[in-house]
């Protein structure tokens, strides 16, 4: 009964979405107020229906109702409760339901909280949101019904991929989707503005908080995924330039560009057509990412769907959505009144450069990701584009961006003075130089690129500090005034500085963990010991162990430093029965000097085991950097200026102006 209610409610949501996507559009252009007024209740109803449906699916998962095909295929009674719940989105159908639910929730948020958005614009935004939902709900209803029944009901389920049975990964997809789908709001605003033929500072002020929220969620999602890859895959890496990783990284890059160009629209009322294009491209990349992951063209833990008809459906939807949006853009963009031009050396000048570099980087990632698919389709030749490609194209484009991101905030709007900005960055430059020199002194023979990375990272952190110090007037005014200024600093400005500092910390983490990593590969017999990075590891042997739903071989390593026992580490290789799979469970011990990381392989046949031992200094700086970026984003979001209700007075004024 419950599954049928859930299914029925998805079908109702599709019908509501069709109404939501059509009536307000016609209503706003033909000036039929009653049709326009459909938008808000429709958006709220769609969200409520999908929330109910999602609750139904969660219920059948928690109660292990194996008469539902989806539950039978992806769940198991022995599975811990957390993974029964996360199993809801650990498969194609369920994750698609989560996707549309989030899409509907964002639409409902605009309907519920966007009181200060002019009614016509708001109705159009909600309508576009509805149209996107129609595409995905169609896929859900016609090709990916999560509530399909099995007769007779099996007694036991197949279980969830054990790699996905992990707390870090349980919350990775929801955050990722909040990010992906959050960009749909920017997309809807862009389409609505194109229909309207008008983009102004107020428009940018409404788009920014949504984009910032989506960006923050996406950052959390990507960071969680990377953290999971680090400790769960047992390869010691944290980013592999895997197509699926790239699929989430491209919208992030484009979204970062959008975040910055929207500021220019808000402050200087220029760069409008470009910002609208960026909003379209960012969500298009989100859709493309969904296609890459869902169409089965790739094989990975993420590729659930191998049904080619779904791939064709998503591709068709992609072509209609992106093609339609770009066609509309092509026909309307010229009508967006161009704003004033500006000096190259100014805040907005650096932001333009930021956009160009970010989009060039997005382009290279896109090319590297899509080229193998393209070549396979055209010539049938199988080819892989590996991490070296991405490293050697991405890094050179990022380096100037990173130098720029410290200079930009120091430049005033309209017309800047480069030497003045650089003078204010003396402290950051000095800090970078000292750190670089120190790095060279501590580690002889360190690659020059690593020294450069350390210098860049320090430069960014130092620049962020200088930015804050500048705002607070540190060293220029009395301490009491500094405190007063600190209290009055807009949270958005502080948030931006913090997010920039996070990027610096991230760069330091990447560089440091690569430059100072120690790796030792050894076939070890019980009682044997091995030295690495100043530690001595003694292998005590391995024995079978039993987990809640797996059998394991658990090795024991005692780690000594200066003859003192500092840790006992127990890496495992696990064997799951449902579904039949094996995983490597690395043992990780964070220490002040970096993580000790041990992964154990199979028996070498003579009583020994192959083991990989690492010391990974500064690896946690990578995720700390991401976390700092997220905190910066959240602080910025809490700024009054970013609240949807804030630009009330201006909105009222705009609403009074006659629509063009």
């Amino acid at each position: 009964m419950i599954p049928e209610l859930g299914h029925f409610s998805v079908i109702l949501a599709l019908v509501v979405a069709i109404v939501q996507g059509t009536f307000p559009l016609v209503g706003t252009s033909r000036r039929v107020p009653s049709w326009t007024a459909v938008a808000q209740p429709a958006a709220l109803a769609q969200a409520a229906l999908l929330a109910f449906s999602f609750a139904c699916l969660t219920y059948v998962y928690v109660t292990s109702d194996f008469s539902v095909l989806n539950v039978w295929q992806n769940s198991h009674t022995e599975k811990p409760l957390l993974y029964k719940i996360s199993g809801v989105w650990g498969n194609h159908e369920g994750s698609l339901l989560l996707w549309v639910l989030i899409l509907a929730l964002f639409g409902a948020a605009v309907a519920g909280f966007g009181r200060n958005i002019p009614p016509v614009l708001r109705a159009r935004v909600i309508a576009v949101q509805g149209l996107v939902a129609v595409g995905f709900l169609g896929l859900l209803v016609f090709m990916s019904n999560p509530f399909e029944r099995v007769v007779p009901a099996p007694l036991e389920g197949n279980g969830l991929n054990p790699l996905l049975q992990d707390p870090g990964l349980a919350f990775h997809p929801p955050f990722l989707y909040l990010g992906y789908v959050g960009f749909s709001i920017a997309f809807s605003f862009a389409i609505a503005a194109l229909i309207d033929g008008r983009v102004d500072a107020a428009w940018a002020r409404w788009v920014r908080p949504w984009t910032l929220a989506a960006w923050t969620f996406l950052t959390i999602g990507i960071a969680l995924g990377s953290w999971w890859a680090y400790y769960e895959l047992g390869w010691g890496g944290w980013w592999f330039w895997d197509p699926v990783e790239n699929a989430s990284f491209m919208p992030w890059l484009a979204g970062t560009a959008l975040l910055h160009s929207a500021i220019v629209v808000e402050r200087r009322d220029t760069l409008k057509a470009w910002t609208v294009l960026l909003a379209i491209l960012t969500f298009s990349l989100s859709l493309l990412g969904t296609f890459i992951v869902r169409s089965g063209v790739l094989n990975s833990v993420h590729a659930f769907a191998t049904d080619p008809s779904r791939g064709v459906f998503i591709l068709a939807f992609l072509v209609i959505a992106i093609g339609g949006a770009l066609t509309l853009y092509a026909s309307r963009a010229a009508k967006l009144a161009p704003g004033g031009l500006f000096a190259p050396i100014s805040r907005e000048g650096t932001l333009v450069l930021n956009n160009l570099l970010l989009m060039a980087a997005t382009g290279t990632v896109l090319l590297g990701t899509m080229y193998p698919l393209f070549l396979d389709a055209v010539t049938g030749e199988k080819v892989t584009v590996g991490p070296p490609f991405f490293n050697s194209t991405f890094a050179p484009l990022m380096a100037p961006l990173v130098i720029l991101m410290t200079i930009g905030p120091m430049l005033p709007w309209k017309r800047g003075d480069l030497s003045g900005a650089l003078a204010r960055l003396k402290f950051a430059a000095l800090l970078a130089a000292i750190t670089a020199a120190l790095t060279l002194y501590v580690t002889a023979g360190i690659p020059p690129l690593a020294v450069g990375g350390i210098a860049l990272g320090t430069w960014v952190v130092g620049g962020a500090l200088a930015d804050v110090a500048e705002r607070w007037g540190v060293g220029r005014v009395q301490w009491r005034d500094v405190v007063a200024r600190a209290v009055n600093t807009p949270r958005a400005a502080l948030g931006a500085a913090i997010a920039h500092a996070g990027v610096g910390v991230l760069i330091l983490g990447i560089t440091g963990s690569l430059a100072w990593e120690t790796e030792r590969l050894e076939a070890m017999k019980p009682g044997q010991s091995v030295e690495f990075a100043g530690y001595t590891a003694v292998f005590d042997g391995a024995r079978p162990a039993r987990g809640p739903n797996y059998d394991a071989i658990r090795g024991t390593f005692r780690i000594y430093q200066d003859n003192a026992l500092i840790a006992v580490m127990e890496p495992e290789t696990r064997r799951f029965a449902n579904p039949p799979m094996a995983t490597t469970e690395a043992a990780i011990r964070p220490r002040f000097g970096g993580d000790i990381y041990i992964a154990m392989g199979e028996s070498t046949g003579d009583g020994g085991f192959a083991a990989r031992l690492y010391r990974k200094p500064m690896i946690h700086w990578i995720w700390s950097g991401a976390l700092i970026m997220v905190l910066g984003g959240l602080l910025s979001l809490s700024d009054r200026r970013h609240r949807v209700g804030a630009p009330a007075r201006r909105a009222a004024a705009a609403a009074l102006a006659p629509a063009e």
Partner: protein
Amino acid sequence: MKPKRRRLLFVVTGMAMLAIAVGLVLAAFEDNLVFFNSPTDVVEKKVAPNVRIRLGGLVEQDSVLKMGTTTTFRVTDTRHSVAVRYTGLLPDLFREGQGVVTEGRLGEDGVFLASTVLAKHDENYMPPEVADALKKSGHWMGEAAK
């Protein structure tokens, strides 16, 4: 600066950025495109040594020999097979008779020196390239083999 010239400056900057990106991509493509080969490709097409390639197929029965952390085995598509040497941790589901994809370079002595060995975590999983290669050699057992 006149508005026209300023606009030109931005267009030129954009184009320059694009040119740099294209240049980087082309330079990186040259070295980093890794082509997939079956053992038959390696034997018949005479793949040049010291070029980074992927080699995939089935791990031949009774061919795996472990010496400490170094493993030697043969990868076969049932028509031809190529000897592979790999130092490192083998993936969890590396088994004789199972599908495998290795990445590395062909040595002068005809032994493939793998730097990565990939066997997916799922026991029923067959890398699509391997399935294709087996189909070509006429030894694909269809869904039964999956």
